[in-house]
């Protein structure tokens, strides 16, 4: 029973981490119809920002979050103003290949400056701390912090989109750019803002994630893949969808734990022999494939 409860708790926490990673991707898609392949690289930059700032200044990694958010916002705005704006004039394929190119550029810049070695944070207020709540549930302080941040970010973005004038302007731009411009909405600025929000949410996630996972310039790829699965499952462009889909993917990553639970509880020896952990990431891609096959619109549907 311990392993079941432990896996559920871990799945929820991991799911919230993943939904925070995917938030920026779904925001940018929801508002601009652009699939940002460089999303994982934004996360990688957030991770490096947190790590290097904490190491250089001796500050606790948690205090680097505002800086990471600022850098992410700037990066998003710069990418839009200096690059994506021009891609929008081309066909869809240009946008796809363009952000793919952006991914390669960012990754190689990181390689140039930081080298390809894994780096990790080893000191900090939350690093290495965990709470044993009993019944096999052990909660890591760093992951709990990311989960709290995820909830705050999702609520924040949802409130911004649905309860503020700015959100209305962003939605109006997304729905009908020309119409919005006639109404006096500075659409270019709205698009840049969308990229800024997308960038800030993912870099802030990165700066927190680096408290428990190590970073190298290639780390973005696996997160991009996971974020795509989350967003596809939740429905491209849907903010609440990304949150719940993140939780589902978190549980998918805990399949080996659930498998162990059945194997141990019911003493099924053949289950014990299956190397489930070797295929941990496979299930995510399998589920991505299945979602695309049976429900291309995801759980919450595409934005209308």
């Amino acid at each position: 029973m311990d392993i079941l409860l432990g896996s559920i708790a871990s799945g929820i926490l991991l799911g919230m981490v993943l939904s925070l990673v995917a938030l920026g991707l779904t925001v940018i898609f929801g508002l601009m119809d652009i699939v940002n392949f460089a999303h994982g690289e934004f996360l990688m930059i957030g991770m490096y920002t947190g790590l290097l700032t904490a190491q250089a200044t001796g500050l606790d990694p948690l205090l680097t979050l505002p800086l990471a958010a600022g850098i992410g916002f700037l990066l998003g705005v710069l990418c839009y103003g200096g690059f994506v704006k021009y891609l929008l004039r081309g066909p869809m394929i240009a946008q796809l290949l363009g952000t793919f190119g952006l991914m390669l550029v960012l990754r190689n810049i990181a390689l140039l400056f930081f080298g390809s070695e894994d780096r990790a944070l080893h000191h900090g207020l939350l690093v290495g701390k965990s709470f044993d709540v009993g019944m096999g549930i052990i909660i890591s302080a760093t992951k709990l912090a990311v989960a709290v941040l995820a909830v705050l970010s999702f609520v924040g973005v949802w409130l911004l989109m649905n309860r503020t004038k700015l959100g209305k302007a962003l939605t109006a731009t997304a729905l009908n750019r020309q119409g919005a411009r006639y109404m006096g909405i500075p659409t270019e600025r709205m698009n840049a803002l969308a990229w800024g929000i997308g960038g800030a949410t993912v870099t802030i996630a990165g700066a927190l994630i680096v408290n428990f996972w190590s970073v190298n310039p290639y780390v973005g790829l696996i997160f991009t893949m996971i974020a795509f699965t989350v967003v596809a499952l939740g429905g491209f462009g849907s903010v609440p969808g990304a949150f719940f889909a993140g939780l589902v993917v978190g549980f998918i990553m805990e399949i080996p734990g659930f498998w162990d639970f059945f194997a141990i509880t019911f003493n099924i020896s053949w289950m014990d022999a299956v190397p489930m952990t070797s295929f941990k990431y496979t299930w995510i891609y399998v589920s991505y494939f299945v979602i695309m096959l049976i429900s291309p619109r995801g759980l919450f549907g595409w934005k209308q």
Partner: protein
Amino acid sequence: MRRSLKCARLLMGITLLTALACTGAVMAEEIKIGVLFPLTGGAAAAGRELRSGAELALDIANNAMPDINMTMAKNVGIKSMGGAKITLIFKDHEGNPTLGADLAKKLILDDKVHGLMGAYHSSVTKAVSAVAEQYGIPLINDSSTSPELTKQGYKWFWRTTPHDVYFTKDLFEFLKGMTEGKVKGLAAVPKKDITNLASACEKTEWGAAVSELIEKFGKDYGFEVKKSILYAAKATDLSSEVRSLIAVKPDAMLFASYTSDAILMMKTLKDQKAAPKLLWGQNAGFEVPEFVSTLGDTTVGSLTRTVFIPKIAQVKPVAAKINAMYKAKTGNDLSGASARSFTGLQAWVHVLEKAGSVKPADIQKAANAIEIPGDELVVPWQGIKFAASGEDIGQNTLGMGLIGQYQKAADGKIDLEIVYPFNVATANMIYPFPKF
């Protein structure tokens, strides 16, 4: 008559010289050895160690250092080739077998190397050994321990380090010794206290082989392997793996991990409050300096198999001398990685000296015939002698391993102490493993 005799002598002289030049016995000015190590990527820390070890051996081989008690230190360069010096061409394979094979081809075809060394990751070494075999270029492997590598029947592959069959057997001999009260400072532990084992190994060539060996020897020695996990060394999160290990309540946890995953594994074990009585790592990530510098006190009490522990210097003067030189150069003590790359290059020097030529066939013949005595080596082996035939062809038959335990000295420094072989143990063993 006399004139024709003179002519004949002259002709003979010219023929002899030409023949000598053709066989390559006349000095080659430079002997090029391509060295493939993971200089970047997850195992970069080990790669740096490996490189520094090989460079130190190169320095000793190319210069005369008579105060070091090693044959290669006596001469400048390779004496049998007129003092030809060795050049190492380092390439970074990033732990990627495909890249390793490509780089090996490049070294052979473009750089025209006379031999190869490397490549640490068994998976990369496997790919590189296939290339070396294809082109007929000798490859001496210094630090890959998958038993499979010497079971391929290759004619151009030799391995100085003992492989995982030796090391894993050592582990079970050690566990058996624990139950028999042979461990220094520890009364016999009842077998039921350490009978349940669980292993987590990275899933490439090396880790998968170790995992199988643990199951095999576990059965042979009467232990129960409750769980064997294979995981991706590049995984970002190992919490489900660790939970899976903890679920079977193992007495001992056994690992085969590279650098970054070994560190992540220890952090996750700590996070999940794992409480094994024994924690053992199959070298690699568990013995690079970063393991201790990153994790600090968390490592105290964990065991690792290795081939070099600085304490060996107490019983081996040549190891003390080389370790001091290495420390002056890098600031670190020799580790299992650097000591083995040092020894790998040392083997190369002996092979070249015996071959007296850079022709692959001569090198092959020499490698199959050399015998380096144990007292010339920094590692505690009986020597180096390659099996020239049989099932384990190319394997050094005189190697052996050590098991070390991280312990904290009075000055707060964490060092490896020898706990196996029992007769050379340097400290009392800490048992059970302290709680995280």
